[in-house]
């Protein structure tokens, strides 16, 4: 009663950040871009939520893990 659930969007929109700008390259050296694919707790967002393609998701996963190693992105956010 106190918690109001945000209405779930009927269809996950496929319009991802990467689809709108084809020039974007997924790279571990670009943490600003990768941050868009992390939750506020630092977890990688599933592709079904972010709407990226499977190939892009594989690239994102790899890039995020590399960026974490270089302390460009956090492993966890407490």
């Amino acid at each position, binding site marked *: 009663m106190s918690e109001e*659930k*945000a209405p*779930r969007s009927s269809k996950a929109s496929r319009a991802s*950040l990467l689809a709108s700008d084809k020039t974007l390259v997924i790279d*571990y*050296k670009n943490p*600003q871009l990768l*941050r*868009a694919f*992390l*939750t*506020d*707790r630092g977890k990688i*967002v*599933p592709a079904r*939520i*972010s709407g990226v393609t499977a190939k892009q998701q594989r690239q994102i996963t790899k890039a995020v893990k*590399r960026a*974490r*190693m*270089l*302390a*460009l*992105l*956090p*492993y966890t956010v407490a």
Partner: protein
Amino acid sequence: MSESTVGQVVSVQSRKGTKREYETVIILRPNVNKNGILELVHKMQGVFEKYGARLIKIENWGSRTLAFPIKRSPTGIYLYWRFLGGSDIVHEFERNLQISESVLRYYTVRLEDDVDPDARPSEITEDLLQAVAEPPPEPEPQPEPVREEEDRFVSDDDGDDDERRR
């Protein structure tokens, strides 16, 4: 091996006369000064020369706040190196980095196999090496991540049963 590849490790796959392209990001302790960086660069250049490798590019990304402290250091100076060589240079390069006390962390990525060394001219000049010791002119203001995307993810993190919380 009967071929004359002594002193130079060539993988079975690699084609003759080609090299591999690597890039390495090094995080230095924040208290390393200009001379410390120059010293490291010159030392590594000696290593590269000895192993027949070639530095293509070197960049100083400046001092950045680390996402988490490394060896108790909250910040670090990022150096980016790109070079051509065989697997032996990576091994030797990283061994030297491990010895160096100013290095907090390093990470090497293989970019490409079978690169023709002539096709990748080195951008390294003495001026450039001097410039590496200086941090980049404008310290990057942390740009805001794309808001609308983030908001969508945030709402998903706790709203429904898509993801269970830890």
